[in-house]
């Protein structure tokens, strides 16, 4: 599979996750969200950027429970709960937000 952004083609796996993390650019998140019928707001970007920083530091896509906890610590309690995160990313903050951020699917999600 692949996704097209601004005339460039990026390889994705069979579930739509970017194959090469280093290729990521914001346009990829925009294009993926469009396919999911989702408009990215500043709140979405906060989570996407947070995930990219988390991956940079720990070399892993966090499980949703870990993400929720970590977001609460970093961005405030009102954002560190699954209700808020699911409202932003209806297909699941672990799976969908990680995909937008160019990360692999979180370990432990099937």
């Amino acid at each position: 599979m692949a996704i097209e952004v601004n005339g460039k083609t990026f390889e994705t796996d069979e579930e739509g996750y970017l194959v090469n993390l280093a290729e990521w650019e914001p346009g990829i998140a925009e294009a993926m969200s469009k396919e999911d019928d989702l408009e990215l707001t500043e709140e979405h970007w906060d989570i996407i950027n947070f995930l990219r920083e988390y991956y940079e530091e720990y070399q892993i896509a966090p499980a949703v429970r870990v993400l929720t906890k970590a977001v609460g610590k970093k961005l405030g309690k009102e954002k560190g709960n699954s209700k808020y995160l699911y409202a932003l990313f209806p297909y699941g903050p672990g799976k969908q937000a990680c995909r937008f951020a160019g990360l692999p699917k979180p370990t432990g999600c099937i």
Partner: protein
Amino acid sequence: MSEEDMMDDEIVKKFMFVNRRAPYGSIYALESLEVVLIAAAFDQDVSLVFSDDGVFQLKKEQDTAGIGMKNFSPTYRALEMYDVEKLYVSKTSMDQRGLTKDDLIVEVEVLGDEALADLMDDQDVIFSF
């Protein structure tokens, strides 16, 4: 699994992962880490033991740029967030390899062989990598 917190009424077992291989020379270390994270996602009581060459997995300052492999050592620092907090290393193995606690990327408990054997006795399931 779904992304809900769904394991509320599951049975919790004591899982021990015994890591005995150096990283990069074989796939064991990385595979073990993956399974540990999955076990943690299922809210199990997870202990990690690093013995023999497994102690090298936790060495600080790994830099794999020159060998074209992923450096997964930072992920050991994420284990705490997965509530995996029982990390033990073998004193015998550390001594043989000239390593001290200061060489390691995470906080661990250093145990002698007898204490490790007792710990092992106390588990429900043991996985060796």
